[in-house]
């Protein structure tokens, strides 16, 4: 419908990059409204372009919904070429719309949230850079270009989590995110280089383009593909906060709240899920890697939810909930239901962005207070925030009719039926759903309902947020409510539009068994029951018998304490991993000071010996030869000088004798 877009896809990431460049280089000299106009304008323009790309791609026949826009050749090395080229297909266009759309809303929200921050232009510059990196990651046509975006979001998360670096904890959280991500990135690098080499050796074509990899991946043995798949997934556990590398995400809330929304919803954490979905053709040939992904996802979903139960910081609850929901997405892609994973990614982007922005609105109203024990009864003073937050909570808990219900149900159904899933994965998912119902209900009840536990001074200042903040909330609330209807299950007797749209991308992927309608209804019933049991339990605990939780916590302290401190994972890491690294460091230092230094010193000593010997050789042999020549010449000169008497008459005698000899030749 809009064929011109095929030549202008590069504008989608470029616009936020330009916005970032302007705001970072000249932003401090611009008035505030100019800064925010540039930032919001550039990302919104990107969103409009992605929507145009979507409309264009939809107008094409289903099998031809793909085009590549090469802006220029980035690396050209003989036959090896990496273009700055962008791949637009249903998967990347859906991701592009989620990323740029949710980013636009968050940018808009930030205008209100950050209005009196000192580093206003820098904030928006980083925010735009973040969106740029994520769009690059999503739209790239080769793993290498994807990796550029991959590293870019890592860098931007560091910059934004540590944005208020005056407090050392914030700077530390930023560094933690960066370092943990680097560990994952290492796996990613190993993975794609291994794949690159394996394909290059077997086919002779050295390429990192998705298309080339897809057509050659069948020639690589399964063992190599499994290794590649797991290494790439290690990268995904870093970016998408899965066990064992999820630890940075709960700390990432040290940044401004809109940044948390951006990280948790639109950018960054979805990168890993997207990458696995993008490489579906590879994972289809590496079923063991898929099983690993599904199990890690299920464990993460359950484990993070248990920690989320007892957190008291509003953002920390949401952070663990993100880790848990990402676990769901990995269950989805891990059991081969790629479109279900991406579907949950999308609905999650809506409601998690909304939850974070809503919590930001609460924190804004509470003058920076984040502890839910000191809130309560806010629903009267923050009506819009409360309404939108409740909608988002219903969505994340999987209450029928809201977005999260459809996507979560899709994943759990596939987890049960897929050959890569099974009862264990499914059961963990259902248990996580119970826990999700519990901790979200707890959060909503403690924050917005019941009696106020605020201190009176804060209570006076509580006010609803300005329009730039509430409009994004309302937009996201609408999406959270209705966003699920594009992916309704087959059991409802309708076509799953979302899965159908993404279908061609995953056509070469995993074959899933045909669905059976009664089973689907049954599983749906179980997950709804799970959600409501969690909700009911939390309602009883925190709204009816409010004394009970404290009493229980008192009684079962041994169980609560570990959950409260995040199951001691951070402590475990700092003791064993960091401690181990430190021990290794000491060992290496010893090795360094003894063996390496010894070798260096030994080399130096040997060098001195050698040079002594060479000096002697020089002095005796070379100098001797030179002097001998000189002395010989001097002594020869001593003999010959006697010829030169200085007396004219002697010379004449020689001349005459010479003449006589010459004459004798002539005459005789």
């Amino acid at each position, binding site marked *: 419908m809009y064929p011109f877009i095929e030549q202008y896809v590069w504008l989608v990431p470029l616009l936020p990059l330009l916005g970032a460049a302007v705001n970072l280089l000249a932003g401090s000299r611009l008035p505030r409204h100019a800064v925010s106009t540039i930032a919001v304008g550039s990302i919104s323009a990107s969103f409009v372009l992605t929507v145009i790309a979507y409309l264009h791609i939809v107008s094409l026949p289903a099998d031809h919904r793909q085009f590549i826009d090469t802006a220029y050749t980035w690396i050209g090395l003989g036959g090896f070429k990496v273009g700055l080229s962008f791949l637009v297909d249903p998967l990347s266009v859906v991701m592009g719309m989620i990323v740029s759309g949710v980013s636009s809303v968050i940018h808009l929200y930030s205008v209100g949230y950050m209005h009196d921050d000192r580093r206003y232009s820098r904030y928006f510059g980083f925010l735009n850079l973040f969106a740029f990196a994520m769009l690059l990651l999503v739209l790239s046509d080769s793993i290498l270009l994807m990796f550029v975006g991959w590293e870019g979001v890592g860098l931007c998360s560091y910059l934004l989590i540590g944005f208020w670096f005056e407090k050392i904890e914030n700077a530390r959280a930023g560094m933690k995110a960066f370092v943990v991500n680097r560990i994952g990135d290492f796996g990613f690098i190993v993975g794609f280089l291994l794949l690159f080499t394996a394909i290059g050796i077997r086919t002779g074509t050295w390429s990192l383009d998705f298309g080339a990899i897809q057509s050659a991946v069948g020639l690589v043995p399964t063992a190599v593909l499994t290794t590649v798949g797991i290494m790439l997934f290690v990268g995904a556990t870093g970016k998408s906060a899965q066990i064992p590398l999820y630890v940075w995400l709960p700390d990432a809330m040290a940044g401004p709240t809109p940044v948390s929304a951006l990280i948790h919803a639109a950018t960054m954490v979805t990168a890993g899920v997207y990458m696995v979905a993008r490489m579906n053709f590879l994972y289809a040939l590496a079923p063991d890697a898929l099983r690993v992904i599904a199990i890690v996802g299920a464990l993460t979903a359950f484990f993070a939810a248990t920690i989320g139960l007892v957190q008291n910081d509003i953002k920390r609850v949401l952070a663990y909930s993100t880790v848990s929901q990402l676990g769901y997405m990995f269950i989805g892609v891990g059991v081969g239901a790629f479109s279900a994973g991406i579907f949950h990614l999308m609905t999650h982007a809506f409601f998690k962005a909304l939850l974070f922005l809503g919590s930001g609105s609460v924190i804004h109203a509470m003058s920076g207070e984040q502890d839910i024990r000191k809130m309560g009864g806010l629903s009267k003073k923050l009506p819009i925030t409360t309404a939108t937050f409740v909608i988002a909570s219903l969505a994340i808990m999987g209450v029928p009719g809201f977005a999260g219900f459809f996507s979560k149900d899709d994943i759990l159904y596939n987890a049960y039926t897929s050959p890569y899933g099974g009862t264990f994965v499914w059961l963990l998912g259902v248990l996580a759903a119970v826990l999700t119902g519990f901790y979200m209900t707890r959060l909503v009840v403690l924050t917005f309902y019941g009696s106020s536990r605020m201190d009176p001074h804060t209570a006076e200042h509580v006010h609803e947020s300005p329009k730039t903040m509430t409009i994004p909330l309302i937009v996201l609330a609408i999406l959270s409510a209705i966003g699920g209807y594009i992916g309704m299950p087959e059991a409802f007797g309708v076509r799953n539009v979302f899965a159908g749209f993404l279908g061609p991308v995953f056509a070469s992927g995993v074959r899933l068994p045909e669905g059976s309608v009664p089973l689907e209804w049954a599983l749906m019933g179980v997950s709804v029951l799970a959600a409501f049991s969690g909700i009911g339990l939390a309602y009883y605990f925190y709204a009816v018998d409010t004394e009970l939780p404290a009493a229980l916590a008192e009684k079962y302290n041994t169980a609560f304490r570990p959950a409260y401190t995040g199951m001691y994972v951070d402590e475990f890491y700092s003791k064993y991993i960091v401690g181990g690294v430190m021990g290794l460091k000491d060992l290496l230092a010893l090795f360094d000071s003894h063996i390496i230094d010894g070798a260096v010193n030994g080399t130096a000593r040997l060098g001195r010996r050698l040079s002594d010997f060479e000096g002697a050789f020089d002095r005796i042999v070379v100098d001797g030869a030179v002097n001998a020549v000189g002395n010989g010449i001097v002594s020869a000169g001593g003999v010959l000088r006697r010829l*030169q008497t*200085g007396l004219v*008459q002697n010379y*004449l005698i020689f001349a*005459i004798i010479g003449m006589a000899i010459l004459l004798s030749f002539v005459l005789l």
Partner: protein
Amino acid sequence: MTILPITLTDYLILSGALFSIGVFGVLTRKNAIAVLMGVELMLNAANINLVAFSKFTGPGVDGQVFALFSIVIAAAEVAVALAIVISIYRVTRTIDLDKEDTLKG
């Protein structure tokens, strides 16, 4: 007795003798002036040759003219040589050639 005509050979013998006396003088005299005189004898031996060959070969007088040039140039040469001798004398207070050995190696 008949007076034998003077032949070319006679002239050449004369000039050869004169040249030899000149060489002897140049090689044996200690005095620089005497050496110069020996050089003059050698030059004039050559002049005799020029004139003699001119007289006995052909009608022209080229050789005699050449001898005149030679005499003039010899005069100039003597003037230069004497000037050098005077300069040497000024520096070393002697014109004894055995003592002039500053170029000794």
